[in-house]
């Protein structure tokens, strides 16, 4: 199979799909031109992700990566969220085909973009360098 059982499970039964009405942070990365957009909504209570939802326009591995990423950060402290890597997402999915690894990159970036949005909205100081990876240049 093109995808692992894990990927197909998250693709067929995506966790946390949808939107949050009053999110504390929203991150959107990618562009439809490239064929993939991910949007992550965060609800944050006491420096912890209390709820998370996602919307994705993209391939099977993009949907599975978003689903897995939201599971991995739900209930986690913001420090832990900051430590999320695309590699961890891909590994949690039992791997992705080489040409689909960028979907997991997109998932990491969407989460971090949402976190950055939370910091921005709440005037919380952060080191901008931490978020410097959020761009689409290196995707393809």
């Amino acid at each position, binding site marked *: 199979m093109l995808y692992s059982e894990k990927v197909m499970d998250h*693709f067929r039964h995506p966790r946390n799909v949808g939107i949050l009405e009053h999110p504390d942070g929203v991150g959107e990365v990618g562009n*439809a031109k490239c064929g993939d*957009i991910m949007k992550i909504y965060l609800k944050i209570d006491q420096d912890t992700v209390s709820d998370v939802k996602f*919307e994705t*326009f993209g391939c099977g591995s993009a949907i599975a990566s978003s689903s897995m990423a939201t599971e991995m950060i739900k209930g986690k402290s913001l420090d832990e969220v900051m430590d999320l890597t695309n590699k961890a997402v891909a590994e949690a999915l039992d791997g992705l085909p080489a040409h689909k690894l960028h979907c997991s990159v997109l998932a990491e970036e969407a989460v971090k973009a949402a976190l950055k949005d939370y910091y921005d909205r709440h005037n919380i100081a952060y080191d901008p360098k931490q978020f410097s990876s959020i761009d689409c240049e290196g995707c393809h």
Partner: protein
Amino acid sequence: MIYADNAATTKLSGTALNAMLPYLREAYGNPSSLYSLGQQAAEALAEARQTVADCLHCRPEEIYFTSGGSEADNQAILSAARRGKARGKTHIISTSFEHHAVLHTLQKLEKEGFTVTLLDVHETGRVTPQQVAEAITDDTCLVTIMYANNEIGTIQPIADIGRLCRERNVLFHTDAVQAAGHLEIDVGRENIDMLSLSGHKFHGPKGVGALYVRKGIPLTPLIEGGAQERRKRAGTENVAGIVGMAAALKEACDHLPEHTAKVSALRDKLIAGLDAIPHGALNGDRNHRLPGNVSFCFEGIEGESMLLLLDDRGICASSGSACTSGSLDPSHVLLAIGRPHEVAHGSLRLSLCEENTEQEVDVMLREIPQVIDYLRNMSPVWRKLQKGECSYVIQ
């Protein structure tokens, strides 16, 4: 399972398989061998060549067997280019939505100094003979235009282009991989100089194809070696494959009108049903279209996830062509007919054959809208469109 991806490949027909089996079992001789077992294979090749020639309305000595459509395309184009270069002509005309077997070969020639004009195929997915006429210069050595497109199924005005090329004394090659066995082809009447076809697109085996080259046109080998195929294509012949391809082509051509009627009725029903989905649109001309081809773009969703969900529901479909599925770029064909990138990503191709049924069409018309709805509901792009934050490309 509903198999609706006959443009990617087809099921080997029973007739073709039965024709092949003796050559996979007891009749295993090498056609170049002198003894009876070898000559039996040589006769099978000769018969297959005659059959293929009959289907295209040419002579058997104008047929060269290859390992498939890609090889035939490569050899035809490179061969015409060599001939052109020898005469000081290095301009080639083609279209922007050819198969990669053609486009990549042209790119290779461009690096060698050839100039390539890729004609616009318009929103309809068709070139006009006028475009070809205007593009031909004194430097033009080859026009290569596909008979029918593999993704959107549009049929080109081949006979008109053929006449024109013949008048202007320019070689004309057509990639008929999607047309052979599905459309009536007469290479003589249509003034075709070279034509490529591939066995597995008309219920023949994979890994075997043919190149028609009009008598008198020199052909350069792509694969050098033994004296097979009148020294134009070396390598021990895939006897079983060739015999199977010929049997399948004959079967297809013998039933052409009947299959066309059946398949195009299914196609039209499918198109009518999918037309009802909002913000979706048929790709390419509605009339000049392969009998089995249904190709749509749907806004707000991405093709691959649609295919995977359809697979879960037992429907085999594709998004663009099969052989580029390893790539993330949107289909060059859909871009060529003017679909913007974001819409080109949401494409669905259903390609039918005479084994598909009306019941299957009904199932597809039930399942596909559900899958599209489901995916649109989780798509941030669709939400924005719905909210009016950006505007629909397809009304």
